[in-house]
């Protein structure tokens, strides 16, 4: 049932732009993703408060206030459409009834805004991945797995048109790899454990989407790539390390599309442009408007290839001008308007604005650099040239390092002195890794304290 990509949907970097995807598709209220317009994608969450049976009324009030506020502002600013993402918090997935209460609040408000103001919108449903609530994580069965599938199923039945998740398979080893600066551990977590889990999980999600006539959208290696990015922004780990991890995350996130997802890939997947080049599906991205949720070194560049533009998440607190989610909505709409003006003027103009987004950030940070559209095509090429996620991961990692080395040499990228030695360290590590992923798996199993992860949950035997 799964595709293996051997060619690129976009191999010309000048075609890798915002607003246009080779494989666009239309949502129920007429929004066409990847069809020539960039839409705002809004996400919001609770202020500090407890979620339990006794507070669910208050929880619902918060969500009702948030969705009403953002849709009202979107209608006032005449947004051509809005994608609403509902990323659940753990208790809402654990208790699908609670999650569904909120889903219905959101869908009702969206229906009302459509009826009253003609505002088009669609819901992206992102149950959070609770499978590591038990440690070692139980990936393929148990109450967390079941609650998650139930919530996917019921929300799709209720009207959520896009299904997503930020899955965590492999992260139980990857976290340490990040803090230890261990590239082998990172590649193992992403391309061996992660890719295996993705295949299992996304086969199920695609099946649910098909059953309800909705779209399996995409995943993100957020717990890997964004954790690395945040750690690098906090100066905890080298920026070049985070950049190479980012390149490798594309291998993991690709699996969703191999299983049948059609985009848009989740906002926080900064690896999405690479996946757009491979798959041709529309992608969501986030940058400067997501600084409410985390700082990033590529606030503009992230917009270069987006089809929806997101704020990642903001909690419902009051700012001077109004509620914070409404502020995000307004900011996103203005950013989208700018892109849509350029889109209205044709490909040359789109390319111009895209290149400005890129030039704004690419020389200042290695992760920004490797996400330049031309680099994305190069990385995409590296990935599809290999047969398995593991081989692709090593290859794309080395390719990213080469790109960085080259960029530093020709001075198009500034790297600090303490970053530089890491390029060699990473190259050595990747080159010395066993060619056979099973050999590596057995090595890891042998040297990892038992109870950190369950090989069987990834279809590995120990």
């Amino acid at each position, binding site marked *: 049932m799964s595709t293996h990509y051997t060619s690129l949907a976009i191999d010309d970097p000048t075609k890798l732009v915002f607003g246009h995807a080779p494989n666009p598709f239309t949502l129920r209220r007429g929004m066409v993703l990847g069809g020539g317009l960039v839409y705002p994608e809004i996400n919001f*969450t609770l202020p500090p408060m407890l979620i339990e049976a006794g507070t669910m009324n208050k929880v619902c009030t918060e969500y009702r206030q948030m969705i009403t506020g953002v849709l009202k502002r979107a209608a006032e600013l005449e947004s051509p459409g809005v994608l609403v993402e509902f990323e659940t*918090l*753990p208790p809402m997935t654990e208790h699908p009834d609670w999650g569904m209460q909120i889903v219905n609040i959101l869908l009702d408000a969206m229906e009302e805004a459509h009826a009253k103001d003609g505002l088009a919108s669609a819901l992206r449903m992102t149950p959070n991945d609770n499978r590591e609530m038990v440690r070692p994580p139980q990936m393929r069965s148990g109450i967390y797995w079941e609650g998650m599938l139930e919530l996917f199923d019921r929300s799709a039945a209720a009207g959520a048109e896009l299904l997503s998740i930020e899955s965590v398979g492999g992260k139980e080893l990857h976290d340490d790899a990040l803090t230890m600066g261990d590239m082998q551990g990172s590649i193992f977590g992403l391309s061996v454990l992660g890719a295996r889990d993705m295949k299992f999980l996304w086969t199920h999600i695609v099946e649910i989407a098909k059953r309800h006539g909705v779209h399996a959208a995409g995943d993100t290696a957020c717990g890997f790539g964004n954790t690395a990015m945040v750690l690098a922004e906090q100066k905890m780990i080298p920026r070049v390390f985070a950049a190479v991890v980012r390149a490798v995350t594309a291998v993991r996130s690709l699996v969703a599309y191999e299983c049948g997802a059609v985009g848009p890939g989740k906002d926080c997947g900064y690896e999405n442009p690479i996946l757009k080049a491979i798959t041709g599906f529309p992608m969501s991205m986030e940058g400067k408007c997501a600084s409410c949720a985390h700082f990033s070194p590529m606030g503009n560049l992230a917009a270069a290839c987006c089809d929806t533009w997101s704020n990642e998440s903001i909690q419902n607190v009051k700012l001077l001008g109004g509620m914070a989610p409404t502020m995000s909505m307004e900011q996103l709409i203005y950013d989208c308007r700018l892109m849509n003006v350029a889109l209205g003027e044709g490909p040359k103009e789109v390319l111009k604005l895209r290149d400005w987004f890129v030039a704004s950030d690419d020389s200042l940070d290695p992760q920004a650099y490797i996400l330049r559209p031309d680099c994305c095509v190069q990385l995409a090429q590296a990935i599809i040239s290999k047969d398995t996620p593991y081989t692709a991961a090593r290859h794309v990692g080395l390719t990213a390092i080469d790109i960085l080395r080259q960029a530093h040499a020709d001075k198009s990228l500034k790297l600090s002195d303490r970053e530089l030695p890491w390029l060699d360290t990473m190259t050595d590590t990747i080159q010395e890794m066993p060619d056979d992923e099973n050999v590596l798996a057995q090595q890891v199993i042998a040297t990892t304290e038992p109870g950190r992860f369950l090989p069987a949950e990834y279809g590995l035997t120990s």
Partner: protein
Amino acid sequence: MANLNALTEFIKSGNRSKATKLTQEALDAGEVPQGILDAMVVGMDVVGERFKCNEIFVPEMLIAARAMKEAMAILEPALVKTGYKPIATAVIGTVQGDLHDIGKNLVSMMWKGASFNVVDLGVNVPAEKFVAAIKEHNATLVGLSALLTTTMPAMQTVMDAIRAEDFVGVKVLIGGAPITQNYADQIGADAFAADAASAVDAARKLLAN
């Protein structure tokens, strides 16, 4: 004495084999165990400072911490004989419902580097487990981490559970991305620290009071 300066250096550079070897030699040469320990702590302090000044990254700091840990394994029996007790025993964990642990792990690691005895309870830790661990380990320092706005209230629950016991001198330090000094005041925690580096200073200050 020269030996001990070298030991400091090996801790700083994270040279495990040389650090352990030198520790053994110093013991054999009859150095006072406390003096050997001090040499190590000086090394880790420098590492911590360098990290604070953005001169090194976490992985480099962890390598130093690992060298220290192994050297300590050799030193500890001798230390204990002299009646030595670690500065303090700390219990740390991420509160119930919350699985974020990288920040907490970094704090835990920094505390270990500062010679605290650290008991890490992991993630998703219910209040009772914190209380039980404080009792079991005679801890005087408690670290609570929360990264979700919806698990912040679980910190209050832990605080209530701790205050309900009659622990003497148990100080609670809280942290995590959504946490503020204001919130610490509100739930009656003893302090808040914004990052792992300042978590050491904050802990030392609390324990000094």
